[in-house]
């Protein structure tokens, strides 16, 4: 990496990044809080024995959203340089969906 020719500039940059990271970290904590909330909600719905027709779709959606949180925030997929990551994850999800769809609908018994 570059040597210390303009270390002033460097520290400034450092400072800037630090702040940016801190900002990001705040988001992460909020994300986490929401994930916990979603989890509580999902468990709550089931423990309260709300009607299954209602519960099942809801908890599935909650799970889906949680996963997006993980991917986009915790795993930084929202950031620059993740186009291919996203492509492949979504391709994987595509194949995964077909697989699960098939195994839940057209295997009988």
């Amino acid at each position, binding site marked *: 990496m570059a040597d210390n020719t303009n270390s002033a500039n460097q520290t400034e940059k450092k400072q800037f990044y630090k702040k940016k990271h801190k900002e990001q970290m705040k988001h992460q904590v909020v994300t986490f809080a929401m994930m916990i909330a979603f989890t509580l909600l999902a468990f709550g719905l089931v423990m309260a024995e709300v009607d299954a027709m209602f519960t099942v779709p809801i908890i599935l959606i909650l799970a889906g959203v949680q996963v997006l949180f993980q991917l986009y925030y915790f795993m930084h997929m929202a950031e620059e340089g993740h186009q291919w990551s996203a492509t492949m994850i979504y391709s994987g999800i595509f194949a995964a969906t077909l697989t699960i769809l098939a*195994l839940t609908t057209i295997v009988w018994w």
Partner: protein
Amino acid sequence: MSTTADKKAGFGSVLWDYLTTVDHKKIAVLYLIGGLFFFILGGLQAMLIRIQLIVPDNEFISAQFYNEVLTMHGTTMIFLAAMPLIFALMNAVLPLQIGARDVAFPFINSLGFWLFLFGGIFLNISWFAGGAPDVGWTAYAPLSLFSESHGVDYYAIGLQIAGFGTLMGGINFLVTVINMRAPGMTYMRMPLFTWTSFIASVLILFAFPALTVGLFLLTFDRLFEGNFFDPEMGGNVIIWEHLFWIFGHPEVYILILPAFGVFSEIIPTFSKKRLFGYSSMVFATILIAFLGFMVWAHHMFTVGLGPIANSIFSVATMAIAVPTGIKIFNWLFTMWGGSIRLTSPMVFALGFIPTFTIGGMTGVMLGAAAADFQYHDTYFVVAHFHYVIVGGTILGIFAGIIYWWPKMFGTMLNEKLNHWFFWLFFIGFHLTFFFQHFLGLMGMPRRYWKFLSDQGLDLFNLISTIGAFGMAFGTIVFLINVVMTQMKGEKVSADPWDARTLEWAIPSPPPFYNFKQEPLVRGLDPLWVEKMQGDGKIKPAEPLGDIHMPNRSFVPFMISLGLFIAGFGVMYQGAMWVLAVIGFGITAGSMLHRSLKDDIGYHVHKEELEEEGDGSNG
């Protein structure tokens, strides 16, 4: 680790060199040797099949042995011959085509090879350990649970090991293509072989995990009393069929796409024309891959999935004819107006087009769900897939081997013998498989140890067997050619075919660092562009500098060996568990060794490179 030290070495050090190499070009040679070995093995098994079926009611081999041969023929050909040979071509040329010094993961790449090899050996040890798998390459449950010998265990574990290797190879190529392209090599300038290999790797990435899981379930059921496929315990045998075909159908496109790529290189080269409709070729490739994930149930039309599912999968299946057709016509129109040279690779390509078209058309016929009630599991299917696999993949592989042989070995296979090989193989092929269409329609199911007399099936079976011998003779001619060429060892120039792509801009065979200076790519078919617009030499994109190279490593061999040993422990259990402990110990230890030891490679210094002179003799 000097550059020239390896050259004049004894057998021992050559062996060590190959055992530890991480150079993609050497790995290509390893894949080539391994793949050809298994191709001959699978071919010999095919000959046993055909000899057994030469006359009705034949007792040449026993029913049990027939099933073993049949299973091993399919499994060997698909997993241990076709796949590795494709990987051989990918390793040999893909990095060169995109102007890369190396692949993204040299270590993983070599691990992929050794896993394949040990997996293949593991599978074949079954012959000597009480019988090979005898349930077809599809290993449908519950037959695969009923099978008493350890054959199916060898199948499950052997393919598992080889499958890991394939997955790793796939990821390696994906990242190589994305991250390692030379300056100017944009996606839409990549040669089609690179494109199709890239897309095939995507298919590998998403298809093989389904097989991995399927094999795990099978292993658990057979060895650990699981109940996935045991109806008595609530298991469901259709799960296996789905998982197998969710893998299996994309697998056939993994086999064919790189072959399409090979022909998309050969046809422009020998027509002296750029590929017609390049972007639609790329698009068609992607579309085939995409659709390839939505059609697997066409192998299961008769399972009883119901008319709705059958219809959906039927229509999706037919849809694949469209992008494939785009390719066929693009090839034809590449030749249109060109200046066609009938070199042997081109003759293979010309043999491929009608053959594959027939195979594809019978594929569409199979895709018509109701009609498949008649075709399914008959020789009509056998004919279909040999037309596409042998007429597509195998012709593509051999065309590729012949085409890139000078690049890989610096020598030129004898053209006359190549033509002999082609005609024997090609005519033999059509004799073997054309009449099988009728056998199927005339009521001969596949996987039949014997057919009965007085059922009108005698003549075509006889012709079929005769044809198979033609293919065998053809293959022998090829092997002779290889031996003779390498004994003569006549060197050729960097670009003996007057070709168009980047790999032909560097010496044959290329130096271990591929490109002395990163090439600058100025268009599709970069070498052609330079031939037309420049002095025929690729411009460097950087000044001469140090080249970073990975260290050789013995660890991939050890990791694979560990799994190989552990496989026996898992299978035989009891006192043999100790083998599992040892094996997994070796694997884990090797992995740990790998991750604890820094491996940052080494540098070839500028001065050394200068001494070697101009590497880019275009």
